[in-house]
């Protein structure tokens, strides 16, 4: 029995500097130094891509260069990113047991009241961040993260949409971002013969539609990552 306890103690002590860990530490430091040296050796001021990106900005439909890169120049990458988010949830649902969401009176009325106060405010902030993304830092991922935070608070406060019982609202929410993105991509491919090449003048509208749909999917995905398995409603324990 005592041996077991010693073993357990030894097992728990994962902060000790054992020789293999020291080697890993040394290798990590070496890699950081190497990366830093490589980054510093780049010729300064040689930003051909940045110049090109800034020059094409007036045709991109948005004024924020980051949004232009994400949704216009490299839209294909972002399409796959949205797909990865959906795959992450499907992977979790495939391996994790169902997650119980208790519907009960919260331990403290403060949390529920706080969430009720925050709910409209955070929805407005998420929408504002999405709209702002056209000209300033922001966009669907940032807005979606705000919605995700709202969802986490919601789950923590044990408030759950009564009609989300069998996930009949969740699935469309999770998929709408990717669906809108693929629809836009296929429609543009058929109309113009090139994937995600926006017609000038309509770029802003298309970007806004894709980002608007992605906003809900990202928010729902982040919330469900926190929940774990497929949410199952449970009434008062």
């Amino acid at each position: 029995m005592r041996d077991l306890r010693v073993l357990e103690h030894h097992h728990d002590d994962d902060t000790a500097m054992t020789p293999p860990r020291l080697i890993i530490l040394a290798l990590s430091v070496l890699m950081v130094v190497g990366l830093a040296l490589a980054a510093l050796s780049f010729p300064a001021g040689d930003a051909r891509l940045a110049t090109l990106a800034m020059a094409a900005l007036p045709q991109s439909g948005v004024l924020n260069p980051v949004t232009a890169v994400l949704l216009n120049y490299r839209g294909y990458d972002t399409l796959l990113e949205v797909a990865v988010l959906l795959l992450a949830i499907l992977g979790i649902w495939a391996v994790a047991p169902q997650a119980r969401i208790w519907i009960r009176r919260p331990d403290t009325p403060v949390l529920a009241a706080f969430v009720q106060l925050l709910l409209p405010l955070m929805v407005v902030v998420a929408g504002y961040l999405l709209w702002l993304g056209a000209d300033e830092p922001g966009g669907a991922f940032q807005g979606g993260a705000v919605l995700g935070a709202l969802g986490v608070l919601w789950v923590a406060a044990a408030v759950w949409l009564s009609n989300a019982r069998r996930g009949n609202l969740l699935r469309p929410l999770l998929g709408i971002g990717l669906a809108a993105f693929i629809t836009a991509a296929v429609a543009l491919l058929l109309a113009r013969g090139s994937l995600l090449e926006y017609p000038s003048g309509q770029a802003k509208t298309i970007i806004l539609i894709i980002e608007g749909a992605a906003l809900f999917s990202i928010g729902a995905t982040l919330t469900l990552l926190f929940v774990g398995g497929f949410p199952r409603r449970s009434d008062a324990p």
Partner: protein
Amino acid sequence: MILAGIFDIALITILLACAWLALTTPDLLRAVVLFIAFGLLAALAWVRLQAPDVALAEAAVGSGLTGALLLSTLSVMQRAEARRKQEHASATTEEERRA
């Protein structure tokens, strides 16, 4: 200019200290809290590097959501530990009763 330099050096120092402490503390809860603090400071570093888009994502996902996930994992682990201890305790009393 000098003030900005002092701020940057302080930021880098605190970032490295947070990272080191988060990795070396034996207390998991403290490690998680340090990780969240690290994420928020990293977001500040992104702002200093003039990448506010990345800063927003880092603060929201890297610090906020990952922090919430780690805290919920921690509570699951503690519950499992408590259950194991309880089972262990009941098994020992059973043995004692038999002896």
